[in-house]
């Protein structure tokens, strides 16, 4: 066991944890003020709910003894036997592995919640999330990181382009379609209630993302440093290119565009960060800022109400980043990784495309099934009156601001 690696992973776990409050305010600031608390609660509530599921059984489903490449066994039920002893090939207590990964199972479903902000029933949200974590997050996590079939196939996902971003992004798209539009969407102005919150949230996300990406190396080595550096570079270029694209197309460089571009850059580099160098990161982030912006513009044409653009940013960013890993990965950066197309191995790109396809299909189908079942049993939306009054007072009995 290495004390340095252990210290590093603990701190990185804390950094990933703080992304969820960061996300809560990032999302919270974007809704109308009558829904700011309900939006924030989605994220905060998952800090409770997902964590409890994780230590009880979801960690085991994800990382327990592999069953046919599809799912983990229940050998780690209730964190049984997860203690000071490192997993094979690791230099940190397994309890640190469980802890670090726990932060991912919080933020992934929290990201989805942006799709149905301002109208989802809290009870239905709770049930949906329990089922989604169990039947979507855990298996997908197992496939890619827990020794499942995609991992064996050589699909690379350093820190969660598939497990986290594409997974949440496509689930969000499905959820936006099934839950339906907000009342007044497209006809009335929906002005963010507090962009200072959103910008600060972006800052916390960027900060925490270092733990997310560099921490995924599970060791304080040069690969971790590289991941840290390229994460930053991609975020930086993402925010610049989104801003420039917007400035050219719409005439105004907005702070929300800046923030959105940073998240696009961060999401896109996530699968790649342990495998690509600085030059590639400049490209990955730069492309991310533009294509995610275009995806967001497309939404307004297509007319579905993915309220906080989860698919446009995380879905599209996750796809792009996973493919980019298949293009730009280099064994010079990480000998334990692979070579992408541009470094001589077209096979890596193929593995990445299979990964993208698999998650797109599985996560969308599973999410649609779950949502329709929940809808049939208990409905998904608050009543129209509650929606007009605002979810905060109607469901939670609170108001965000009394300034």
């Amino acid at each position, binding site marked *: 066991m290495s004390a340095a690696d252990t210290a590093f992973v603990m701190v990185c776990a804390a950094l990933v944890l703080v992304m969820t409050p960061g996300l809560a305010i990032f999302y919270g600031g974007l809704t109308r003020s009558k829904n700011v608390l309900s939006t924030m609660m989605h994220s905060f509530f998952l800090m409770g709910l997902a964590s409890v599921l994780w230590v009880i059984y979801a960690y085991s489903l994800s990382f327990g003894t592999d069953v046919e490449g599809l799912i983990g066994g229940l050998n780690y039920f209730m964190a049984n036997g997860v203690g000071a002893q490192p997993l094979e090939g690791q230099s940190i207590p397994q309890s640190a592995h469980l802890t670090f990964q726990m932060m991912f199972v919080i933020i992934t479903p929290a990201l989805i919640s942006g799709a149905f902000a301002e109208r989802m029933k809290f009870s239905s949200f709770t049930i949906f999330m329990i089922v989604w974590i169990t039947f979507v997050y855990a298996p997908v996590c197992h496939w890619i990181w827990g020794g499942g079939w995609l991992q064996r196939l050589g699909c690379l996902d350093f820190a969660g382009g598939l497990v986290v971003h594409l997974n949440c992004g496509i689930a969000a798209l499905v959820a936006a379609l099934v839950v339906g539009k907000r009342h*007044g969407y497209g*006809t*009335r*102005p929906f002005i963010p209630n507090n962009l200072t919150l959103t910008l600060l949230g972006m800052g916390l996300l960027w900060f925490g993302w270092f733990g997310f990406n560099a921490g995924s190396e599970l060791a304080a080595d040069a690969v971790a440093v590289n991941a840290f550096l390229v994460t930053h570079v991609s975020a930086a270029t993402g925010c610049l290119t989104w801003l420039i694209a917007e400035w050219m197309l719409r005439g105004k460089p907005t702070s929300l565009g800046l923030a959105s571009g940073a998240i696009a850059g961060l999401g896109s580099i996530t699968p790649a960060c342990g495998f690509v160098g600085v030059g590639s990161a400049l490209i990955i982030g730069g492309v991310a800022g533009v294509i995610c912006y275009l995806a967001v513009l497309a939404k307004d044409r297509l007319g579905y109400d993915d309220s906080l653009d989860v698919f446009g940013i995380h879905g599209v960013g996750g796809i792009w980043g996973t493919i980019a890993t298949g293009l730009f990965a280099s064994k010079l950066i990480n000998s334990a990784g692979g070579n992408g197309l541009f470094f001589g191995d077209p096979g890596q790109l193929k593995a990445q495309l299979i990964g993208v396809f698999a998650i797109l299909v599985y996560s969308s189908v599973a999410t649609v099934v779950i949502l329709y079942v929940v809808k049939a049993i208990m409905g998904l939306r608050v009543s129209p009156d509650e929606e*007009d*009054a605002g979810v905060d*007072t*109607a469901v939670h*009995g*609170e*108001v965000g601001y009394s300034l």
Partner: protein
Amino acid sequence: MKKVEVIIRPFKLDDVKEALTSLGVQGMTVTEVKGFGRQKGHKEIYRGAEYLVDLVPKIKIEMVVTDDLVDQVVERTIAAARTGNIGDGKIFVSAEERAIRIRTGETDLDAL
């Protein structure tokens, strides 16, 4: 000249504004207010404390119009702001004696 004061549900603002401008109303002043009336409020809970909040958010629109416009303003406002549920709001009309446009000093009808 009359002053028409309209109190409506916040989410009806755009509809009412549109209805009025299409009538030829060229200016109005909008205030965020809280209304107390028949519409019941909601319960708020902060830890142990529970409050009945009976002031509900409303929008007040004030506009000064020529006498002959008043009836139409009232009619169109009702059409645009009505949901049929308690709390749709009120329209009040009162006399206005003078109006002046600061920019030009024009008065009364010219100032509207």
